[in-house]
């Protein structure tokens, strides 16, 4: 029913090409997140799906119906969508109830049915008692709930969310993340969610599509897949903090700064060109004996974890370890102190890509 498919879509504003030949499919009932840095065209894609913009080329279908392309352009109001905007877009001159009831104005339901539907969805988002308030009397989080209630009340096939959480503070963001997930389960709508916030994307999505700054889709997969098996350096660097060390191989034996490693780096190994090994802060640790020699540059006790900056072979690495583990082991090192680094996991990438990419 609510499958969204985008085929070969292109969009340019004047000379600026935002999207080129982009294709992706969001399955019925799926929560799909488009994740990318700001300015990568993800919001443009959402606006194309919503019908606020027309693609220069390509086709968009929603629930099997062609809505854009091949000379067709279904206006937004006829696409049966719910949209939640980054700035909430709650109408300031209407009460919470009137805001929420608005989409039902265009349906054939009778008045009691409508009132029940509105109260129902307001209860779901936790605003059941605030129906007569005006948006100016609500907090940011509450306004965002009104926007959600309004998007859900008419049971649209597809829900489009444009960074709906980015204007909220961290605690509220976490809370709303779970709420959106719950609401989606209850309503069964297909969700296309656009964000630059990887935490939200990883926590919320069934699948994630990762866009690079040029608006190309780099990888599509489950949160686990994109996080654990990044398709390329761009994807790897985009998700979480990453560090890189220079890698050398003789045969299958990998070495860093001459020191042989006791692990096999993952990933393809191009035959020519220098290689680097990439890892996330928790995928390495400081050891008192052995390991690759390095120097502790910075130590920051962040609470549950300790954050180290360590220099190895001329590159600075970020390493994090649980505080309790550090205390049990070698204790907090002093800045400037030599140390050993043991890697638990490394992924190989071409060094050229590292210096080329931003």
């Amino acid at each position, binding site marked *: 029913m609510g499958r969204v498919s985008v085929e070969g879509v292109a969009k340019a504003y004047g000379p600026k090409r935002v999207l080129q030949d982009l294709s992706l499919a969001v399955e019925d009932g799926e929560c799909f997140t488009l994740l990318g840095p700001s300015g990568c065209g993800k919001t443009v894609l959402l606006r194309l799906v919503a019908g606020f913009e027309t693609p220069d080329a390509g086709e968009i279908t929603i629930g099997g119906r062609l809505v854009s392309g091949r000379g067709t352009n279904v206006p937004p109001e006829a*696409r049966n969508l719910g949209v939640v905007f*980054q700035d909430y877009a709650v109408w300031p001159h209407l009460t919470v109830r009137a805001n929420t009831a608005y989409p039902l104005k265009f*349906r054939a339901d009778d008045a009691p049915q409508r009132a029940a539907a509105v109260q129902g969805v307001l209860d779901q988002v936790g605003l059941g008692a605030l129906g007569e308030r005006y948006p100016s009397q609500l907090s940011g989080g509450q306004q965002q709930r009104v926007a959600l209630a309004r998007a859900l009340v008419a049971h649209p096939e597809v829900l489009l969310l444009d960074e709906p959480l980015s204007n909220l503070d961290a605690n509220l963001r976490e809370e709303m993340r779970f709420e959106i997930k719950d609401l989606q389960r209850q309503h069964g709508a297909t969700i296309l969610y656009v964000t630059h916030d990887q935490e939200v994307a990883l926590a919320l999505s069934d699948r994630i599509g990762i866009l690079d700054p040029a608006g190309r889709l780099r990888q599509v997969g489950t949160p686990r897949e994109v996080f654990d098996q990044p398709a390329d350096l761009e994807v790897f660097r985009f998700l979480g903090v990453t560090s890189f060390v220079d890698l050398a191989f003789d045969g299958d034996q990998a070495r860093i700064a001459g020191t042989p490693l006791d692990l096999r780096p993952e990933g393809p190994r191009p035959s020519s060109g220098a290689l680097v090994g990439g890892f996330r802060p928790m995928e390495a640790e400081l050891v008192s004996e052995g390991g690759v020699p390095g120097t502790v540059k910075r130590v920051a006790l962040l609470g549950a974890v300790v954050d180290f900056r360590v220099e190895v072979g001329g590159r600075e690495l970020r390493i994090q370890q649980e505080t309790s583990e550090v205390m049990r082991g070698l204790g907090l090192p002093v800045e400037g102190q030599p140390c050993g680094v043991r890697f638990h996991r490394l992924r190989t990438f071409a060094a050229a890509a590292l210096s080329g990419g931003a």
Partner: protein
Amino acid sequence: MRPRRFGTAELLLLLSILILVVVVAIPILLIFWNAFVVEGKPDFLRALALLKEPDTLEALKNSLVIAGGTTVLSTIIGVFFAWLVSRTDLPYKGTMKVLFLVPFMLPSFIGALAWKILLSPRGGHINRLLMDLFHLEDPVFNIMSLGGIIAVETMYLFPFVFIQVSGALERMDPTLEEAARISGAGLFTITRRITLPLMMPSILAGALLVALYSLAHFGVPAILGTERNIFIIPTKIYEKIYASGGNFEAIRTGTMLSSILVLSAAAILYIQSLVLSSGRFQVISGKSMRPMVLKLRGLKWPLLILSVVYIALTVVLPTVTIFLVGTLKTYGLAFKLENMTFDNFTYILFKWELTRDAIWNSFYLSLSAAAVTMLIGTLISYVLVKTKIRGKFLLEFLGVLPFSVPGTVIALGVILMWSGRFGVNLYNTAWIIFVAYIARYMAFALKSTSAALEQVHDSLEEAARACGASKWQAMKDVVLPLIKPGMVAAFFLIFLPALRELTTSVLLYGPHTRTIGVAIYTLNEDGETVYAAALAAIALVIIVLGQLLIKRVTRAKIESA
């Protein structure tokens, strides 16, 4: 890119362009055409030769002196009082601030009338009083001079500077001054090195507005200058068009002078936009702060008295004069109870056709012009702010035009356009004033409706579309309710000034289409000082009632929101 169909947006754009072209652009073009084209050929030399006529040259010189003098004087007074009410511990600051804005709502030509009654060299009441008291041979003051015109213009125009500067002083981040203080700078140094430079853009912006208005105002120099052969550009244009029976050379001189007015207005507005965009918002934030306040100590009460006396002299005295003279049985009688009567007012309001018509004309003309201009302005602003279509730059250009066209120029432009030359002759009808008002007040409508529309974020409209509303439905349910306050503001911003308007209608009125302003002006010309004052008093009452009504309406708006 696919070529787009000719849709609603394109239609609206075309309509907006058409309206602005007909109402504003063609009249201005006609003025330039008449000024510089003789028998189908451009002829700048002859055009310039017209300017060398002694009387036109004199008018240009006077304009420069009056605009310059008024600007300097208004800036000094405006900055001083603005500083006094926002940066000192002057008692009753709030009340004083409101009082300093009162001259804004009073028509300056009524003030000029009052001052003429008080300070004209021979007949002026104050002059006579002083001459009697001190047994003088000659009058002490002569308001009917360049200096007098500058003084009266300043009384009514200084609030432009006052408003800009007091607003900026209140929004200025006090830490900027505190930082200087901590660094050891004294108050004088802080004012000179920190405060004044930061205020400069606001001061300049206000001063340029004063320059623009004093250059284009007709009323004050007409009442105080014409009798004494002191002309400035607008009154010279009036004289040329009206007094010389509309012969061709006279119209050409009029259009030449109008061209000069348009070009100077455009230059002033251009400089102002440069000044305003030079980054003052980096240090002056939108929110109000608690500014550093200077303790006046011993000067506290003297300065308050100075302010009160200023208000009393510039606002209360002329107003009282107008009301008192309006009640006299005959002009020249002493202000004694037995010489006073209310019959003048009933006569003017109900019996005399000329004044009754004038009041009625002003009412329906400003009402209809305000409504129509507000609606057209909303349409044009919508296209400008909310649509993304090719060809919009044309509308953007045309949209700037109404801002730079002084009232006299508009009047001359519509005369050239609507006097039968293009098949439509509206001359001597109310329609020609109506068309001129639309052109004259379009800038107000554009400013306030486009500001309102800019605050309605696109996503609000898009949210409605996503909810199932069509373009028109979204407009009706979301955009219109949200910009309604802006539209109401635009309506009143046009209605009230149009009600007391003189500069434009004085060039356009016919036997039955006098406006209140024109009636007061012509009555004064004809020596009917008492009736002129009585009508002016009625006008003042109407204006004050109108202002109170606006306050009511806008406050109700704020409370319901």
